[in-house]
């Protein structure tokens, strides 16, 4: 393990800056510029993880975001630890700590490896088939499955890092800063377009930036040098913003894209303090140019997953960019010319190439002749049939391919190696294009899917568009970008390209073997351990659609979304089924392209900013006076005010009794308030409420019930006629916004002829409700100028008045059944008026009460709470509120629905009161109500909606909905609970003061 596979002078690595890091508890050294993968490879570490199902040893396979195997757990501290990080993407920094995941107890000795031996009994769909029977056993299986599966560990403490979101608007967004992206950026910015160029890597130039052999030239300059000059030039352009380490996660419709800008992950921990870690960019671009490149394909053969097997292009990148050899005795296995570029890089650096295995019988490229000149043996028309070595490849065997490529023939030849580079050609990275809704077409020549129809103003250029040669990339990029951006002039004239490779390729999706398929493990999806055998099994079992095969075999369902193997899965399906490629569809790539952290998604919306909090103007007083709060929508409402040593129940009982025996005070500011004005305001109310409004006198209040068009109760509240053409409507706290929206909807779309204007004034007023037999005395002290006599100020009326110099409205309305006054005053005076009321009520035992007591008091009176005693299936008739439904009005919202065949049924659930046999027993809200406990299955008649112990009646009371309940008065029913059955009697829902005498009670 102490081998050093690093050699001097590479493109990206700063050899003067040494960095130490820990991997699986062992300390290693790397250099600034290294990724974790390149640093590990330099230390000759290939084994980095275990596979998901069979726990096979796996090594680094790629050098980019498509990595399926080298996914690691980063950081060992619990708040920052992060699973599923690709070792090929993370840049090392001093103090980095990482470990393998999905192995126990260690990557070198993994108990789950037994699954590899058991694999003949673990085919695709094994879990579905085996563990679903018997059903009751699932719980037992689940424990073991979850323990042995699992992709890393999630942090257990809050994330200490800072994240943020940012909106960006630009003329042109270019994704990918490879050669085509750089060219497009220059053309766009130089023509005055506001351009943004992003790339997921830390450097610009893509893969051409390390194309530094004599065999790749642009205009007589080595490609990488030519490109460096271009990069140098564009970095000075004014209209161009360049963001590296920025990965586009999602490409939505209308050119809306999400990208993650990684700002600190490459810095030493002590330099990250107070810096933003990730920034989620929300980009709206007028035009989008995708230059996302292509991903090299692996080859599918037996045991193609051993540590030491890499993509050939990754090997080249590790050599040219990081100065790291993947092995000392390398073999390349290919079906196209790409591997010869890798071989050339090795030759230039003096790294041993043992042999090249090529599927093709004829090879005709300058590079291949050059390789042969270097005495490297090329096995033409051969394929690898097996590999050896457990934790690291040690050798392989090859055989000759038959003419049709379906069989292997001749003698097996064994070759030794410690690293194998494979190349199955290239797959254009069309992921983002398809995310945006783009449709692909299949190109038979080289078996690739390429963009066909753009769903928005966008363009694909370079190899992601299927232009895989340097010549095609340069020529086509200029032509298509010019047309797309409507520009005439560019700096680019003609290109003279020199290249050592050709496009020839012999594509065989599943390479033949001397063994029968059942005996092979040819991995198609490395991360999810799906093999060619599994895919064929799925087809045999009748699956055809790629989406079904994918789910059955889990191909492409890992965190890498099968970036490497999906094409092979499609190829094997179409070969086996005897259909054309593309006929089974392609799988859908879904956002994000690479995984995003939750922190990035959430941004600043954490802690206090997670949701909006609404507080009443009197909130501080409640806090000072020890209120407990309840969330009602976004509102914080005082729930109850416990005194020392009081629990909730004791506090509510005390508050409830005080409100009826002396006086109570409630902060009702959260009630929705809608100001309604216009010459048709009365007519409007007539149409939206079930009862009649035209005859309501100015200065009077009325309770109203609002239905949906389907006849179901939607909201309720008191509306007051302030003037001839002026009303103020109150709504429930939670319903305010929806009611306003619904009323606006009707006004704008159904009744535009009505002269009515609506305005939300919820936040403009503080509402203080004083109730109880002493309430009149208290409000009289607060507003001495106002005549509170019953004659002048009867129940359900309102007065405009003043407290000091401040105008206010006082309504005499009651939700408790007690005599009750509601003071509405400009918000900022709310707290001082509340304090005035408290002061005035001191001698009358004025008691602040919260929502819980309010609910109890109204339940004693049988008043409903919309949303608690109703759901969207209750009509006013079901609620025994027939009295509020006008028989005379020709129409109102929901009227016609009240006599649909369904709504007039007798056995609908109806609101009733419930009294327990034992008056001390308080029912649980939500409990089921039944009549016959012996019937099987037991018929559920309804459920308890509100339930309290009433201190004013000294017994338990409840409301509930019961099928046909209206006709059950006095009937006995049963509430079956876990340990007992509770007997109840159906009662009138009004438990207290049926005649309403308390509204005018005098003390």
């Amino acid at each position, binding site marked *: 393990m102490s081998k050093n596979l690093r050699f001097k002078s590479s493109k990206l690595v700063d050899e003067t800056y040494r960095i130490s890091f820990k991997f699986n508890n062992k300390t290693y050294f790397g250099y600034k510029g290294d990724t974790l993968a390149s640093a590990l490879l330099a230390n000759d570490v290939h084994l980095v993880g275990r596979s998901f199902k069979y726990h096979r040893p796996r090594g680094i396979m790629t050098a980019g975001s498509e990595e399926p195997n080298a996914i690691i757990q980063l950081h060992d501290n619990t708040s920052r630890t992060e699973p599923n990080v690709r070792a090929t993407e993370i840049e090392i920094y001093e103090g980095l700590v990482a470990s393998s995941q999905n192995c126990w107890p260690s990557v070198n000795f993994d108990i789950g490896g037994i699954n590899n031996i058991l694999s003949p009994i673990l085919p695709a769909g094994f879990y579905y088939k085996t563990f679903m029977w018997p059903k009751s056993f699932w719980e037992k299986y689940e424990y073991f499955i979850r323990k042995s599966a699992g992709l890393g560990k999630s942090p257990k403490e809050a994330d200490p890092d800072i994240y943020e979101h940012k909106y960006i608007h630009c003329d042109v967004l270019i994704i990918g800063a490879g050669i085509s992206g750089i060219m497009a950026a220059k053309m766009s910015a130089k023509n005055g377009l506001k351009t943004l160029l992003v790339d997921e890597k830390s450097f610009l130039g893509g893969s051409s930036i390390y194309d530094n052999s004599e065999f790749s030239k642009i205009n007589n300059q080595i490609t990488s040098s030519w490109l460096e000059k271009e990069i140098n030039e564009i970095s000075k352009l004014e209209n161009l913003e360049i963001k590296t380490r920025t990965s586009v996660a999602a490409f939505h419709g209308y050119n809306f894209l999400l990208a993650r800008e990684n700002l600190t992950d490459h810095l030493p921990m002590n330099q990250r303090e107070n810096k933003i870690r990730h920034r989620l960019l929300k980009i709206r671009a007028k035009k989008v140019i995708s230059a996302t490149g292509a991903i090299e394909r692996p080859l599918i053969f037996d045991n193609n997953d051993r540590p030491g097997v890499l993509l050939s292009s990754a090997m080249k990148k590790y050599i040219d960019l990081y100065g790291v050899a993947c092995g000392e005795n390398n073999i390349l296995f290919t079906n196209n010319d790409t591997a010869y570029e890798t071989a050339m890089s090795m030759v230039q650096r003096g790294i041993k190439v043992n042999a090249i295995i090529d599927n093709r019988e004829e090879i005709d490229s300058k590079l291949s002749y050059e390789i042969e000149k270097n005495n490297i043996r090329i096995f033409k028309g051969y394929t690898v049939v097996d590999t050896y070595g457990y934790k690291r490849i040690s050798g392989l065997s090859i055989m000759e391919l038959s003419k049709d490529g379906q069989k292997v023939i001749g003698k097996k030849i064994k070759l030794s190696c410690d690293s194998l580079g494979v190349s199955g050609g290239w797959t254009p990275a069309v992921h983002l294009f398809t995310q945006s*809704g783009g449709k692909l077409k299949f190109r038979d020549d080289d078996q690739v899917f390429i963009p066909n129809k753009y769903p928005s103003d966008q363009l694909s250029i370079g190899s992601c568009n299927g232009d895989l040669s340097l010549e095609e990339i340069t020529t086509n990029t200029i032509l298509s970008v010019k047309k797309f951006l409507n520009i005439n002039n560019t700096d680019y004239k003609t290109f003279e390209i020199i290249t050592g490779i050709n496009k020839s390729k012999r594509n065989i999706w599943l390479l033949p073997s001397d063994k029968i398929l059942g005996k092979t493990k040819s991995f198609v999806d490395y991360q999810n351990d799906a093999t060619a055998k599994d895919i064929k099994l799925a087809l045999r079992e009748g699956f055809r659609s790629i989406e079904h095969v994918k789910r059955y075999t889990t191909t492409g369902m890992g965190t890498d979304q099968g970036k490497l193997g999906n094409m092979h899965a499609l190829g094997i399906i179409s070969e086996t089924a005897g259909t054309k490629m593309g006929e089974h569809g392609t799988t859908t790539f879904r956002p994000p392209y690479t995984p995003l952290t939750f922190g990035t998604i959430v941004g600043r919306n954490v802690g206090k900013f997670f949701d909006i909090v609404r507080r009443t103007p009197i909130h501080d007083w409640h806090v000072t006076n020890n209120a407990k709060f309840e969330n009602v929508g976004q509102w914080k409402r005082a729930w109850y005010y416990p005194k020392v040593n009081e629990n909730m129940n004791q506090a509510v009982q005390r508050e409830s009794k005080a409100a009826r025996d002396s006086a109570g005070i409630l902060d009702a500011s959260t009630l929705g308030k809608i100001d309604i004005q216009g010459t048709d305001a009365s007519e409007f109310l007539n149409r939206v409420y079930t009862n009649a409004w035209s005859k309501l006198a100015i200065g009077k209040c009325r309770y109203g019930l609002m239905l949906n068009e389907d006849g179901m109760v939607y909201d309720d509240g008191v509306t007051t006629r302030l003037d001839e053409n002026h009303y103020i409507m109150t709504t429930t706290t939670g319903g305010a916004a929806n009611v306003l929206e619904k009323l606006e909807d009707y006004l704008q779309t159904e009744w535009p002829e009505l002269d009515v204007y609506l305005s939300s004034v919820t936040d403009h007023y503080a509402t203080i409700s004083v109730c109880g037999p002493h309430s009149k005395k208290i409000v009289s002290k607060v507003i001495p100028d106002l005549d509170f006599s019953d004659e002048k100020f009867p129940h359900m009326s309102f007065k405009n008045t003043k407290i000091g110099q401040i105008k206010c409205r006082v309504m005499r309305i009651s939700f408790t059944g007690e005599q009750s006054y509601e003071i509405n005053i400009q918000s900022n005076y709310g707290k001082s008026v509340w304090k005035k009321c408290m002061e005035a009520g001191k001698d009358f035992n004025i008691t602040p009460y919260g929502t819980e007591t309010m609910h109890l008091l109204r339940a004693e009176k049988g008043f409903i709470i919309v949303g608690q005693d109703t759901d969207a299936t209750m009509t006013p008739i079901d609620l025994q509120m027939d009295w509020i439904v006008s028989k005379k009005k020709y129409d109102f919202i929901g009227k016609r629905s009240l006599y649909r065949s369904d709504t007039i049924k007798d056995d609908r659930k109806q609101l009733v009161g419930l009294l327990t046999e034992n008056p001390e027993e308080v029912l649980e809200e939500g409990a089921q109500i039944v009549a016959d406990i012996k019937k099987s299955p037991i018929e559920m008649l309804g459920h308890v909606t509100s339930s309290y112990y009433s201190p004013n009646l000294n017994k338990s009371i409840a409301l509930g909905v019961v099928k046909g309940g209206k006709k059950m008065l006095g009937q006995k029913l049963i509430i079956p609970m876990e340990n007992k059955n509770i007997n109840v009697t159906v009662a009138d829902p009004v438990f207290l003061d049926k005649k309403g005498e308390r509204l005018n009670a005098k003390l």
Partner: protein
Amino acid sequence: MFLINCPFCGEREQSEFKAGGEAHIERPKQPTELSDDEWAEFLFMRKNIKGVQFERWNHAHGCRKWFNIARDTSNDQIKAVYKMGEKPTVK
């Protein structure tokens, strides 16, 4: 995320808007004259088509106005935006 060209405010992000279901379903002027079936047709039956669909949208976090759009549900292209009471300009 669509860009919607509000007829009153101009082009805005979809997040400012709220969808309001199928357009051009007029509330019957005389509901009481309708049979249960006729009323149910108005109340419950909605189209769900692949292709151009006419929809109500509300600029909820903007001018609060309701208007109609014609949207191709197969690719989310908005073919037309028009005010309440107006006829769509596409079929």
